[in-house]
């Protein structure tokens, strides 16, 4: 996908770390992979609040908000983020996640409205393909 192709808008992604979780190796791997695939990636840095992340994602108007969670706080943080997006009329934002999340929780998170969760050892290309597909399915905005 070339940028001078007017029909193909560059995919914008915000990658976020929320709460006390200091594991940032994975999210940096994802950031680089998406960047190298031609996407614009806004990385929030560590220790953000859900409010900060949602406000920033709205201002940056990202297609996809990706949250990396290895702290075990996912069942608390994802619902919070989804609720804030709803409150701020930004439900059209695609929410994804990764990190360390048990399978049962993954199922529940999908039911809550998280679009995609990709865990340990997901090859970068799979993340790229999956993001492109999510944006294509959503359609023009």
């Amino acid at each position, binding site marked *: 996908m070339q940028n001078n192709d007017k029909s193909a808008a*560059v995919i914008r992604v915000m990658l976020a770390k929320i709460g006390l979780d200091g594991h940032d190796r994975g999210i940096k791997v994802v950031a680089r992979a998406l960047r*190298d695939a031609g996407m614009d990636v806004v990385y929030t840095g560590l220790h953000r609040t859900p409010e900060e992340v949602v406000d920033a994602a709205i201002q940056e108007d990202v297609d996809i908000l990706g949250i990396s969670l290895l702290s075990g706080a996912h069942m608390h943080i994802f619902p919070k983020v989804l609720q804030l997006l709803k409150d701020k009329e930004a439900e059209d934002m695609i929410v994804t996640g990764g990190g360390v999340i048990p399978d049962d929780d993954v199922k529940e998170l999908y039911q809550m409205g998280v679009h995609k969760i990709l865990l340990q050892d997901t090859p970068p290309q799979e993340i790229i393909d999956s993001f492109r597909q999510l944006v294509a399915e*959503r359609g023009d*905005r």
Partner: protein
Amino acid sequence: MINRIPSMQLAERVREGHLRAIARLITRVESGDNPEVREALAELYKSTGNAHVVGITGVPGAGKSTLVTQLVHEYRASGRKVGVVAIDPSSPYSGGAILGDRIRMGDLVSDPGVFIRSMATRGTLGGLARPALDAVDLLDAGGFDIVLIETVGVGQDEVDIVRAAHTTVVVNAPGLGDDIQAIKAGVLEIADVHVVSKADRPDSNRTIQELKGMLMMSLEQGEGIWRVPVVPTSSEKHTGFGELMAAIDRHAEHLKTSGEITERRHQIALTRVVKVAEQIVRDNFARDSRSQTEALLKQVTQRELDPHGAAVSLLKAMKETIHETH
């Protein structure tokens, strides 16, 4: 599939200061030329001209993002709404980018009086100036009193963006090299305010003195002429940012009282119009006129036609297609 809100409808919300509408229209101007979007921007342009636009430039690492964050706090304390457009370089290989300025500005969100948007520079063909300045217009129309643009200020496109500001702040860090960085970057002449950042560092005094010496030599002095101040700032000691805001305010006042604002507005209009015209021509080449170009190029290589003549006929042929797409 989601429901796409028409740009004109978004434009109405922009006027009410709706942040999501501003954000979405920036995305649309960034993702290329669409007549439906241009129409909305044209309408909104009528509501612009109220914001004071400040260009902040300096080499990577100079301390621009840190300074922008502090400056935003100062403006908020003075009761003004601030928009920020942060332009980060992209990877030259893929066109993608990791936009890092947001990390340093993280503590600014969750305040509806602040809006921060990151933008990537996209290779050589990419017209960065147009979307960046469209974003400034959107923030202006959305009721932001101050719009700060952060750019690294190298390359023609970036210099053009800075030229489209009312006040240009050049950020110099101590010890980043022997010469003043502004000279290297070629932006000494366009600075309305110089900052020496990291004034907590011992080598900052030398940079301040060098800069002051340089300004004495290179600038005319006298009644009614703006004297470019050198403002030291330190994010460590939290000093200088109030002074910087005051210097920018004084410059804004000077533009008005001296009448220079008229000249500057004219200059900004000129830069923008020429820039967009260039962009339209480039886009057109890239899009429709390839086969035509090829035929002409062949004539030029075979010495049947000279380059100037070929260019003129290309532009003539372009006239109709431009009308359709813009």
